[in-house]
């Protein structure tokens, strides 16, 4: 899976992109966040308040229950502030 981070999430995680193999126990976004939080203290810190984080799967807005696959592009970011 390709995982992208934007805005302050990118700063907290310390990278804008990472590619991981989908762990068997990860079925949806919530599972993925749980897995990522365990991967480093930076991730743990970045995902400390998941309610303030938005997610997109394959460039479409998704939610924490959205099911994910090995080939998906998943992006995590704070609420948008354009315009």
């Amino acid at each position, binding site marked *: 899976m390709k995982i*992208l981070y*934007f*805005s*302050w999430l990118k700063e907290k995680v310390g990278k804008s992109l990472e590619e991981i193999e989908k762990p068997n126990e990860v079925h949806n976004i919530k599972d993925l966040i749980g897995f990522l939080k365990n991967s480093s203290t930076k991730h743990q810190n970045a995902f400390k308040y998941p309610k303030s984080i938005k997610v*997109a799967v394959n*460039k*479409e*807005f998704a939610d924490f229950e959205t099911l994910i696959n090995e080939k998906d592009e998943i*992006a995590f*970011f*704070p*609420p*948008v*502030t*354009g*315009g």
Partner: protein
Amino acid sequence: MVRVIVRVQKENFILQNEIDNLKSICKEIPGALSSFVGYVRDFSNGKKISTLTIEHYPGMTEKMLTDISKNASQKWPLLGTLIIHRFGTLNVNDQIVLAASASIHRKAAFEATEYMMDYLKTSAPFWKSERVNKDNVWVEAKLDDELAKDRWK
């Protein structure tokens, strides 16, 4: 078919050229064209800003802006729509965004432009960071923007 133009770019834009371009691609002469331009403010929450940096999610941004434009043309009888949004580091007073819609009559044009801006604010993946003193501060999303969008439902 309604004509839709969406551009995400670093470069500045010239309002008159963009309006002329939008008019030229409409299949009939629009009797009404409404446009909105957003600029970089010099103050935010009482603090002086020196620059504004805008980050976005390439690919998803264009997709969301196109979806917003198409949704607007389903709600109003439009001839064409235009959204240009800049990214990168901008100075105070620089142009950030242009949204415009062309129609036969003004009501559709006014409302569609406002609709596109309200949805852009809450659905297009852009993030602003303000340079205040020597710190970069990420702008927080405003509840008012969510509420502004909800009135179109």
